[in-house]
């Protein structure tokens, strides 16, 4: 739960929907925008959105990444036929953006607006309240023209209606737009607050007659505001960041995570790595992964994994099996041992012995494969009933004939990392 990016489409749609409530009745934002996903029937669109056939269009991907122009991912001043062709060419294509490669799946189509000036406005949350940024030099990398940006801090308990925004806009604001921009900024702030936005950037927006049109919009919403604002959000989705393609196993763990109250996480970093972790607790799992990297075993690190929030025995069993399966698929080419770190801090009230039940079940299932791939297991855990839990693991090691070393809170949490890898 945190600040999460939303699609440009959703941001603009929301803005258009609440424009008259928060911003202005005098000047308008018509909110002409269409979202295209792989299931959209492009030919059916003009029936509902007549402007597609009558206006020149702009098309671009809407997948939470910026700098689309730089990557050649904007088609401007296009007819509907041209727009369709462009989308068809790009849909479901692997595309590299910056360092990340991902699939293009979502596009937006908007009217192409001929304009003169491009302006910049952004609102960003900070501890005291929110900072409004405004510049008359939008449409470029704003950092490069930072001198032109006015910063207007609105404290959390401040009434924006009592703030003279007009006087705080940059000095070079065109006279004819001053009033309108002040009203727009004020309204945008209200919209942002009321709908639990945490970040909203429009770069640029343009003026066209009696309309203000945001050309490019980036937004993050505080999803913990759900219980206050979800009525206004409507049917809002929080798409995954571009380029995160999950493997089958990662998807399976994600599915278990979503379908249960427990927290289960798995990211496979290097399936050929020799060190696998299965750590209880969010902080603990970060610390183990940190330590493996910090002690110089970065190349051996196979995964990032976490289980917490009191998962049931069944869930722990499935989760452990997923990891054991991944790590025992192949032998190390040099015949070296592999390591499984079943780590964790000192639990508050979770029964440690009970949480080990699912893991021991999985280890039994993989007895042969674990031996074949020379897996050594190190366990470190504390908390309620930990002695019993460690004994269960130790006994299991003897029963299966697999080396399982166990440690309690008297051993520093991450020492097993060096015990496992230090000997190499």
């Amino acid at each position, binding site marked *: 739960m945190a600040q999460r990016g939303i699609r440009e489409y959703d941001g603009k749609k929301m803005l258009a929907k609440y424009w008259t409530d928060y911003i202005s009745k005098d000047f308008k934002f018509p909110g002409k925008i269409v979202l295209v996903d792989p299931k959209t029937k492009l030919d059916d669109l003009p029936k509902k959105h007549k402007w597609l056939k009558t206006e020149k269009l702009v098309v671009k991907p809407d997948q939470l990444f910026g700098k689309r122009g730089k990557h050649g991912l904007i088609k401007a001043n296009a007819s509907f036929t041209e727009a369709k062709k462009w989308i068809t060419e790009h849909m479901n294509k692997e595309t590299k953006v910056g360092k990340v490669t991902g699939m293009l799946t979502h596009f937006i189509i908007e009217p192409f607006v001929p304009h003169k000036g491009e302006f910049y406005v952004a609102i*960003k949350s900070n501890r005291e309240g929110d900072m409004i940024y405004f510049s008359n030099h939008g449409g470029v990398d704003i950092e490069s023209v930072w001198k032109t940006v006015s910063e207007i801090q609105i404290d*959390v308990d401040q009434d924006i209606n009592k703030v003279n925004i007009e006087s705080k806009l940059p000095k070079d604001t065109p006279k004819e737009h001053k009033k309108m921009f002040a009203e727009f900024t004020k309204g945008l702030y209200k919209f942002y607050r009321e709908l639990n936005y945490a970040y909203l*950037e429009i*770069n640029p927006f343009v003026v066209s007659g009696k309309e203000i049109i945001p050309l490019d919009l980036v937004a993050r919403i505080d999803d913990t505001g759900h219980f206050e604002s979800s009525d206004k959000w409507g049917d809002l989705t929080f798409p995954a960041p571009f380029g995160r393609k999950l493997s089958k196993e990662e998807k399976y763990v994600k599915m278990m995570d979503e379908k249960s109250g427990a927290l289960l996480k798995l990211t496979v970093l290097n399936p050929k790595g020799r060190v696998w972790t299965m750590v209880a607790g969010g902080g*603990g799992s970060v610390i183990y*992964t940190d330590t493996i990297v*910090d002690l110089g075993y970065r190349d051996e690190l196979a995964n990032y994994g976490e289980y917490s929030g009191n998962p049931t025995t069944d869930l722990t069993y499935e989760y452990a099996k997923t990891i054991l399966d991944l790590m025992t698929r192949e032998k190390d080419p040099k015949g070296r041992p592999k390591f499984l770190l079943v780590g964790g801090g*000192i639990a508050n009230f979770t029964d440690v012995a009970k949480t080990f039940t699912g893991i021991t079940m999985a280890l039994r299932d993989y007895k042969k494969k674990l031996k074949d791939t020379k897996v050594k297991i190190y366990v470190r855990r504390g908390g309620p009933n930990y002695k019993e839990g460690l004994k269960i693991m130790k006994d299991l090691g003897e029963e299966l004939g697999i080396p399982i070393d166990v440690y309690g809170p008297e051993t520093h949490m991450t020492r097993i990392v060096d015990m496992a890898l230090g000997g190499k």
Partner: protein
Amino acid sequence: MEAITVTKTKKSGKRPDYIIMDKNTKAIIFGFQTRAIQRMLDFDYICRREEPSVVVIVNPTRDGMHKCFWGTKEILIPMVRTLKEATKMHPEADFMVNFASFRSAYQTSKEALETKTIRSVAIIAEGLPEQRTKELIKIAKEKNKWIIGPATVGGIAAGGFRIGNTAGQLDNIVASKLHRQGSVAYVSKSGGLSNELNNIIAMTTDGVYEGVAIGGDRYPGSTFIDHMMRYEKNPDIKMTVLLGEVGGTDEYEVIDAIKKGRIKKPVVAWCIGTCSKVFPAEVQFGHAGARAGAERETADVKNKAFKDVGVYVPKSFDDFDKQIEKAYTKLVKSGKHKPIPDVEPPIIPLDYEVALKQGMIRKPASFISTISDDRGEELRYCGVTISRIFEEKWGLGGVIGLLWFKKNLPAWAREFIERVVLLTADHGPAVSGAHNSIIASRAGKDLISSLVSGLLTIGPRFGGAVQGSANHFTKYLYAGEEPSFMVTDMKSKNVNIQGIGHRIKSVTNPDVRVTIMVDFAKKNFPVTETLDYALSVEELTTSKRNNLILNVDGCIGVLCCDMLRGIGYSRDEVREFVDLGILNAFFVLGRSIGFMGHIMDQKRLKSRLYRHPWDDIEYMMPDKPEKVK
């Protein structure tokens, strides 16, 4: 055990500004978190606090007294519905532990911060909207108050005060020396790692003085610097430990304070998340006003910044403990600090559940139940899961077999029981039981009262013939007496044989219900000894009078006995069932269906109160009472 009511406690006493919780802290608990409350009291007890730290509970849905343990004794803690009442009752309580949900935590925390007597609020809930937390931060700042959290386990003042569930179980608390004050204070973002910090600090130094987990939100109610400055001012704290995280820039406020000399005590710091660099890079946002580069927010850069201002920074978390030990040893060697000696904590009796789980204690149960178990994944009747009962279509007879006889009954027995239920279900509105039910229902009584009113008539004269006939026939049959002896013996004792005789039906006009049941039994029952005996008796009685036939109650009575024999009970056991009055169970079960039908019928008809007509009563009252001589 004696119960003491905690209503008035001593004043919390004045304390310096830099202390927000200590052994005199009195707290209000918002939310009826019984386990957390008990954990706080247990901690108080092993710290040898004079008085409990929890003085009042706010529970919007209930008030009264809450009973909990204070060592081996039990005490009562008042519970009120509003914070207003709580602060009025205990103005000395300056700390509120807020267990309200993320939905209501804002409102309740705001109210607490605006209350004069409360100085600090710990917000446990995770998922407060950032804007709401920011509003709370503003109020706290203006009123010079403290917020710990949201999204935290809380914090602990060693030897003094524990926020809610902080520091886990008592054995862990004692192992981490938290029952007495040490000299090292820490502040951590993560609550989950605070146990580990307590453990590390206890192993490498003379122990924790205080520890706070500020919580994982973007805008914690109090930040690293807030607590580090408190620790700096507190002369009892000799050194500090900080556990930060990747993301955000709050750690830099501390770095800045160290650089500027505002923090002089030794600091050991580490930011977790150094592994973030090995994760696949996700595309950056078109970052706007964010002039602070993302680089600054990485754990690596923060750790380096700490190191650059002279903080003890380990190479990895793996030697965090060694750095703490190094800083502490230096402090002791320099003579600036004399280690605080260990203290033996008082023994707290184990909780019953814990001791039981560990196999340390046992106690004879007050109850034994042998027919069903509702504790597992699925309800079971006599070991059979309810899903199996449905899948295998055990039916009513099968379930009665499980719950009454603990047997997996054969099909004939199941069907017999179901037939008995169907047969006895009703006998019209005029019989005494149905009549009573109807009268009670019409008097406006509820279904259960009306049903009971009907059931109470079942006995020796109404409906009791099932039980009675079973009793009479088995008595003579099992004693090996001839039917003729039974008839003459009963006659000589002037007792009617139960289950014999009918008002209308006779040999020539047999009761079809009896015929069906007798045929069924003859065809399916492995044993029909009681039925055969009763039929022999019937032969004798009907020879005297035509209507002295085996009636339906009698038939059910004897067949129940034969069924019991057929499913494996001995004659002695059958007699035991009969003596216990168990055969009435069949009639009560069946007839309840009819009674409830009559009650529902009356309710739907909206029948008025029944009053018996005068003309149906012959009033025979004497003129005056008889005089007692």
